[in-house]
């Protein structure tokens, strides 16, 4: 069941086309990863979906209907850059934002209590926001986004700034919401997270969709020709080997895709034969990671061909 369908939206600012014909769909109970480098047009796309700014062209439908006040009340939003009213108390802040989503004060109080308890923030109930740590403020912002139980939740880099324990908690809650049928748009440039969470992705670059579809499908489209090697030694020569496209290289780990013309065994032979004498710990041929796909697609667009490099 499609919750949001965006078709061919465009937005032009003075001389820059921020969004140039983006189309996407999010279904109920689905997490869509909205991916792309900085300045790709993710935020503008999100703002248009949220009706903060209007597209110059194209249509955005919610359950098949155009934007309306009830739709607005069914949306939750966590922006990337965050802040709160520092001088206000936690509970007043929550009640205010809930009232803007059309929730009654009594109902808001009840839900605020539950969520604050779950996020371990009950002690701050009547305290000023400025007394909260940064991480705790972030949890509050997430509470503001989900308190009214939205049917569409838009999250922009929700994990940034959270410690591992709270990351687990956030993931848990996202899974619950997903199970309840919430459609979630998850914008990030941390590919690992997207890969773990998303059902589908939409990768944007320079205002255009580069690739989109269910995660598995996207990965299949990029073949199984991704090679991951774990090793000890100086692996810098790997990038120079023939048939290698797009590379993510860490100190002891490299991932790249391989030209189909070059067989994996041939590659392995040339790695072993190289004078750098790498100590191979693991050699794997698998589906490419989202990270590699991202770097190949975006990197190719940046340099007009050869992608890859350090992360």
């Amino acid at each position, binding site marked *: 069941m499609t919750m949001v369908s965006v078709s061919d939206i465009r937005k032009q600012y003075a001389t820059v086309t921020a969004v140039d014909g983006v189309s996407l769909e999010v279904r109920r109970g689905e997490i869509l990863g909205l991916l792309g480098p900085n300045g790709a047009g993710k935020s503008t796309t999100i*703002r248009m979906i*949220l*009706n*903060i*700014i209007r597209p110059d062209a194209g249509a955005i439908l919610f359950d098949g209907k155009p934007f309306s006040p009830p739709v*607005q*009340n069914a*949306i939750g*939003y966590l*922006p990337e*850059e*965050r*802040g*709160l*009213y*520092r*001088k*206000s108390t936690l509970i*007043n802040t929550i009640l*205010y*934002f809930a*009232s*803007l*989503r*059309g929730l009654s004060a009594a109902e808001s109080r009840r839900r605020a209590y539950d969520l604050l308890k779950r996020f371990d923030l009950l002690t701050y109930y009547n305290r000023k926001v400025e007394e909260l740590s940064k991480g705790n403020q972030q949890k509050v*912002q997430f509470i*503001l*986004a989900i308190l009214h139980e939205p049917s569409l939740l*838009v999250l922009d880099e929700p994990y940034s700034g959270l410690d591992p324990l709270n990351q687990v908690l956030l993931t848990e809650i996202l899974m619950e919401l997903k199970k309840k049928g919430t459609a979630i748009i998850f914008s990030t440039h941390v590919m690992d997270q997207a890969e773990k969470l998303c059902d589908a992705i939409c990768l944007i670059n320079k205002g255009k969709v580069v690739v989109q579809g269910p995660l598995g499908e996207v990965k299949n489209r990029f073949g199984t020709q991704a090679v991951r090697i774990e090793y000890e030694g100086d692996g810098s020569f790997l990038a120079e080997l023939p048939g290698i496209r797009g590379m993510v290289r860490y100190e002891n780990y490299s991932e790249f895709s391989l030209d189909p013309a070059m067989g994996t065994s041939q590659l392995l032979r040339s790695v072993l034969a190289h004078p750098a004498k790498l100590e191979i710990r693991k050699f794997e041929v698998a589906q490419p990671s989202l990270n590699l796909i991202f770097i190949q697609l975006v990197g190719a667009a940046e340099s007009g061909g050869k992608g890859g490099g350090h992360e």
Partner: protein
Amino acid sequence: MNKYLAVGRWEYLEKIKSKAFLISLFLTPAIMAGMILIPAALASRPDTETKVIGIIDPSGKVHGPLGKMLEDRYKLPNGQPNYLLREIPVPSDGIPGAKAAADTLISMEAMAGCFVFAGDYLNDSIVEYRSSNLGDIRLTEQVFETVRDYVRQNRLLAKGLDTSMIRELTRPLTLRTMKVSRPGAEEESGFNQVFFTGYIFMMMMFVLVLTTGQILVRSMLEEKSNRVVEVLLSSCSANDLMFGKIIGLSGLGLTQMAFWAVAGVLLSAKMGTPLPPAPMVLLNLLYVVLGYLLYAGIFVAMGAPVSTEQDAQQITTYLMLVLFVPIFLMFSIAQAPNSGLVRILSFIPLLTPSMMIMRISILMPTPAEIAGSLILLAISAVAMMKVAGKIFRTTILFTGKRPNMRELVQFIRSE
């Protein structure tokens, strides 16, 4: 609950607790009262020490009777004379030598000043007064008045009138001032009372516009810099947000005014000064409210595009200057409340409220002028709100450089 009401309620309840508001609530009337009352109190405070005034009196006939007149008229609270005349002897080199001696005493602050009754002062009508401080208004008023009376009496004596006749002829006169607002309606009123009614309403509007205007700009700036504005705009429309803010802050302004009004009524009841008539107060309030809305629109339009504290500060400074124009013109308005210039200025919407408030308190303008200026002001306020709404919608998400005028016009057009 409508969303703009939710915004208004929030702005009102949060800002009413803010320090800026509490300060303006209590400090403003304190400063205003201080500005009026302290100089008045200082000026009316009696002297505590006798002031010595020299007199160069070659005839030797003046200092005795004049000194007695001064002593009789002005006493210190402890019963001692307020002014003491001291004769400066005339040395062999004549008046110039006496003046030199007097100047020395004046510069040593042994004397407040010195009169010179040289020559035929009765016929020449010239008496000289030398002092290092001619700004002591009370001294000059009291002493000069006594000297004038003394000279007048001596002229009359010289014409052969007797002293009782002279007293009869020179008895003081009481001037009653009546304010006529329309034929048949008179009330006792002095310049100060008239002036201060207008002044107080004008001040009230200034403080209202400046404090709440500043709070408005600050609140937009805060939401911009902490990015709350994005969440707000995803939950309500830009119009809801803008009108909510204006409603909330108007409520704040009304609270402030109500507080001051109660304080003012209590104070005037205690001091026994009459309150201005109700229709006049209502008319003034109408100008204040419409003027406030116009300025609120301007604050939104100018405040929404800025993203730094300095830029915000600049805006309030500009607007303050515009607000102060009528203050500079206050005395010209008082002198000619119906002059062409005053009439023209009354129809410039930004100046209308303060100009009209001033004029109403001095001389009621014609009903046509009142109606015309109110309608024009109301139209401008509504138009300003519309423009402000457009600018607000398009620029509230901006951060960084403040857009220039041309860019702003483009935004408004492109909406």
